[in-house]
């Protein structure tokens, strides 16, 4: 094990941490929006809509993320070409940035899980809370924004943040379509000099540090969010 190379790999890998965090965050935000939309589909009165929802969830959860990524990586250029030919946009589909495939596949995939988080969080707000508000004369609108939404968010945010750390790890598959995240960077580092173990250990250490730091940060935030709940401290 070569310490010098390990250290230089370690510092080099940090340079891609911001873009990894940012890309994960972007996916998270997009999938929150899509996930909320899906939740609405689920609650729709229309039977067909609900069936579409169920197939969507089953498909995106049933197929490995890796395959979603590859499918969109190969499907995107022809689709974009179709549109660009029709609309005369002249998009260079041969050199389409693979990051779009990552964004789309990850968002569609993550949304299938986030919709469940969002739904269960809204469900977790007890009827009694809304009845109490109604009894005090709150309008439906006030009940939603003053009681239901804040309480649902308290429940959902910690889970969503947890999902964020998961996304950072899942992004490690992006190297398959040559998008550079932490893991892909470590592969690039070792591709030059063949010091595999050094660069993989360095990447593992970066992930470990990141994960511990984020978990600490998030759990403190969660404590803050749950400050009005009964503390379980013995």
């Amino acid at each position, binding site marked *: 094990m070569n310490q010098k190379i390990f250290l230089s790999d370690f510092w080099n890998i940090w340079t891609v941490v911001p873009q990894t965090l940012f890309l994960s965050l972007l996916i998270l935000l997009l999938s929150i929006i899509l996930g909320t939309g899906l939740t609405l589909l689920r609650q729709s009165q229309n039977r067909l809509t609900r069936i579409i929802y169920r197939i969507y969830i089953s498909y995106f959860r*049933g*197929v490995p993320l890796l395959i979603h990524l590859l499918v969109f990586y190969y499907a995107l250029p022809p689709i974009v070409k179709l549109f660009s030919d029709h609309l005369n946009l002249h998009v260079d589909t041969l050199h389409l940035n693979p990051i779009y495939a990552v964004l789309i596949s990850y968002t569609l995939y993550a949304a299938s899980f986030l919709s469940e988080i969002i739904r269960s969080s809204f469900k977790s707000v007890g009827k009694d809370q809304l009845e109490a508000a109604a009894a005090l004369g709150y309008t439906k609108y006030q009940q939603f924004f003053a009681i239901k939404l804040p309480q649902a968010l308290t429940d959902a945010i910690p889970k969503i943040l947890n999902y964020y750390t998961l996304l950072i790890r899942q992004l490690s598959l992006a190297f398959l379509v040559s998008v550079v995240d932490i893991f892909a960077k470590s592969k690039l580092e070792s591709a030059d000099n063949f010091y595999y173990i050094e660069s993989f250990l360095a990447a593992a250490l970066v992930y470990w540090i990141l994960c511990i730091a984020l978990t600490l940060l998030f759990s403190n935030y969660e404590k803050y969010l749950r400050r009005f709940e009964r503390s379980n401290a013995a």
Partner: protein
Amino acid sequence: MTFSVVLNTFVQLFKGVPVTLTFIIFAWILGSSLSILVTAGRLSQHQWLRAILTVYVSFIRSVPIVLQLFLVYYGLPLVVKLSLGIDLSSVSKMLFCVITFTLYYGAYLSEILRPSYLTVSAEQRDAALSMGYTPLQADIHVLIPQTLSIAIPGLGNEIINLVHQSSILFVLGTVDLMGQADTIVSNDYTSSPLLTYFCAGLIYWAIVIILNLVLSFLEVRIDKFRDLPSERSLIR
């Protein structure tokens, strides 16, 4: 794209299914066995053991499994050679895959078992001890059965995770389902990558659907005394 092309793709892909299923069974048995030991260790009185296991679980949970796979694949032969002088270079790649997944699920499943054990309230243990059960009797007859019933939905999720995550093995050149897809795409330039990966996805989907059916059947069977609502958690 004709029907025969699709059929051919499926035929090729299906060659990988037994490998995938065998791998899953091995990894699951070994991983859950390890996780029982890890859980017991983390609940034990030995501070050192607990500290070491906490570090181990924290590491496994922080690092993507594909990176762990590479670490084991490149690192283990080095370590074994330096410490024991045994050359692992001719050993099957599958061995490294199984080792990685065993270590991974040993940690992850203990993260399900341990909280489940702790949820089985202290009161249940009190009740057993108060009547003169030995701690071991309390574990065997009261606490472990309840732990399992609480843990089973989570464990079921993890099997599905395992199916999904096994798709990453192909980066080492295995011949499982995803490995077959990769072989088709890289060997046969007339093949359509999109079609091949999509079909592989459909097979994974089918496996997951069947597994889910089996799992919910099992859950109903053991559900009768559980009063906690089960919520299927997230797939990693």
